[in-house]
């Protein structure tokens, strides 16, 4: 045995090391726990260096930004002024909206909407295995714990999956194991947001029958008990119909401006999902009211309106003709022994009448009026085009 060990010493050591690591893996998988002590040591050992690097980088960056890039300040100032003017206009608009809306309800909602308690943090590193997990410089000593939501001003960006004394690991929204409950802004369609490992996420579990539009925003529902309700998630960039569920891709708004400063939600407060914004002027189409004719009672009714005065479809008109015929035959609907309905040989449809001027349609072939300029029945016919001879007539 001793000879065997000395002869194959390297191989034996290799097998021992591999076997011990396999045991370690099996223990973690079986107990569904992670070797926290090892992680704490590693993170505590590496975090100071990462923080030092990040502080050095940001110091150098801010130095150059503050002292050497002052050329852009004037342009930036002009831009901010324009932005302020725009915000003032928007503020005035919102004030007007609030005043004209249901005042009491709006006030109650406004009072109930208080911002969540958050803690600012800075990303100092990424994970070694996947770039969708980052390390931030806040940990349990700052009150950060596993399961807390991580957001920016633009939307959600992830959640805390592990916290250590001086740092925490944050799983980004783009991670393939990430999930959150979301709802669309316009049509209130509920779904599950899932990361895909890149900068677009997928909204799962949305039935093909549900309506989701391109450009629509998704917000958190608050039902996952991680993210407070009403936080922006992302904008829809692709909608495709699948076998059962739609395939919806969204671009997360929280990740749009990079990852440096983030907010960890210590105490979340649910908010209302904002109403969709009004369509822009080029998206609005004004339709003219339908042409009218004078009904039997002397009131003006739209063209094509049936005798009962209710706007109906072709199917309704067909049903009306069928009912009329069956009533003339003396059929009583719903009684025992009634025949299945037959739509053959129905009486012709009654043309809309123009008050007391009931007359048979002219036999002369008349040109059909154009769709955009219909001539109501009973209205005076337009004069025929004048010929040069007609002009000469007195």
């Amino acid at each position, binding site marked *: 045995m001793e000879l065997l060990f000395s002869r194959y010493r390297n191989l034996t050591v290799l097998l021992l090391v591999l076997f011990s690591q396999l045991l370690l893996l099996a223990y973690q998988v079986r107990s569904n726990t992670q070797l926290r002590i090892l992680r704490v040591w590693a993170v505590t050992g590496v975090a100071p260096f990462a923080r030092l690097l990040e502080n050095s980088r940001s110091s150098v960056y801010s130095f150059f930004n503050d002292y050497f890039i002052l050329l852009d300040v004037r342009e930036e100032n002009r831009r901010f002024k324009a932005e302020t003017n725009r915000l003032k206009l928007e503020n005035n608009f919102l004030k007007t909206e609030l005043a004209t809306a249901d005042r009491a309800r709006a006030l109650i909602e406004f009072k109930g909407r208080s911002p969540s308690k958050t803690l600012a943090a800075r990303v100092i590193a990424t994970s070694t*295995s996947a770039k969708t997990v980052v390390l931030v410089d806040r940990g349990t000593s700052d009150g950060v714990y596993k399961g807390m939501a991580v957001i920016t001003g633009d939307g959600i960006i992830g959640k805390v999956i592990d916290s250590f004394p001086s740092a925490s690991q944050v799983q980004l929204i783009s991670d393939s194991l990430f999930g959150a409950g979301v709802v669309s802004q316009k049509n209130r369609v509920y779904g599950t947001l899932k990361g895909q490992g890149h900068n677009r996420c997928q909204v799962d579990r949305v039935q093909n029958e549900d309506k989701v539009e391109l450009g629509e925003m998704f917000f958190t529902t608050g039902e996952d008990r991680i993210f407070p309700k009403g936080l922006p998630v992302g904008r829809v960039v692709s909608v495709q119909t699948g076998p059962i569920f739609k395939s919806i891709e969204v671009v997360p708004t929280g990740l749009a401006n990079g990852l440096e400063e983030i907010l960890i939600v210590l105490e979340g407060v649910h908010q209302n999902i904002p109403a969709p914004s009004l369509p822009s002027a080029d998206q609005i189409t004004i339709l003219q009211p339908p042409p009218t004719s004078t009904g039997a009672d002397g009131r003006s009714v739209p063209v094509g309106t049936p005798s009962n005065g209710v706007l109906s479809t072709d199917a309704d008109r067909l049903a009306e003709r069928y009912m009329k015929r069956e009533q003339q035959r003396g059929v009583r609907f719903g009684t025992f022994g009634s025949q299945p309905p037959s739509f053959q040989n129905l009486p012709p449809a009654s043309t809309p009448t123009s008050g007391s001027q009931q007359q048979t349609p002219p036999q002369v072939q008349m040109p059909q009026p154009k769709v955009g300029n219909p001539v109501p029945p009973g209205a005076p016919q337009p004069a025929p085009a004048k010929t040069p001879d007609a002009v000469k007539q007195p």
Partner: protein
Amino acid sequence: MDTTDQILSGGRSKDRLIRPGNIQPFLAILYLPLLAVLYEIYIPNFFIQLAYVQLTLLVTLYYSLSWRSQTAALFFGAAVGLMQDALSHQYVGLFGITKTLVGYFAASVSLRFDVENSAIRFILTFFFFTFHQFFYWILVRALLGLGMAFEPAQMFIQAGLNALIAMPLFIVLDKLNNRWR
């Protein structure tokens, strides 16, 4: 290093002896992997393209090839891999097992070839990078049953890029080691 190893390595191991009292090479063994890990967790924050450069693997390969000791190489690989695992959000041991094997096999190869030749280093880095990625994928898929995409074309491109980076990197590390001895 045992007698067999010395014979197979053509006595080159004598050149690698460290002067007594010189602790710089030992310190380098500690802080070079640390620098590699720092690179992997920090730089991709700003340059996501540089995430494909696996410095931890390159450092493991360099030491495994230069030490020519299978036992030392496998322990070094295991240590670097476990550290990498501890800083990830996955089970501890995946990178550990993979890098242990890389260290062991790289040291085994170094006993039979002249691994100071740049062309051989290129080929070995390409091969071991591919082996590392493929074995890691097998562990994740087969052992843990987790979903993970396998893209051979991308893997070979990354292997080529890492092998290209390894050539100047190994030369710099050689010079540093020679200075410290």
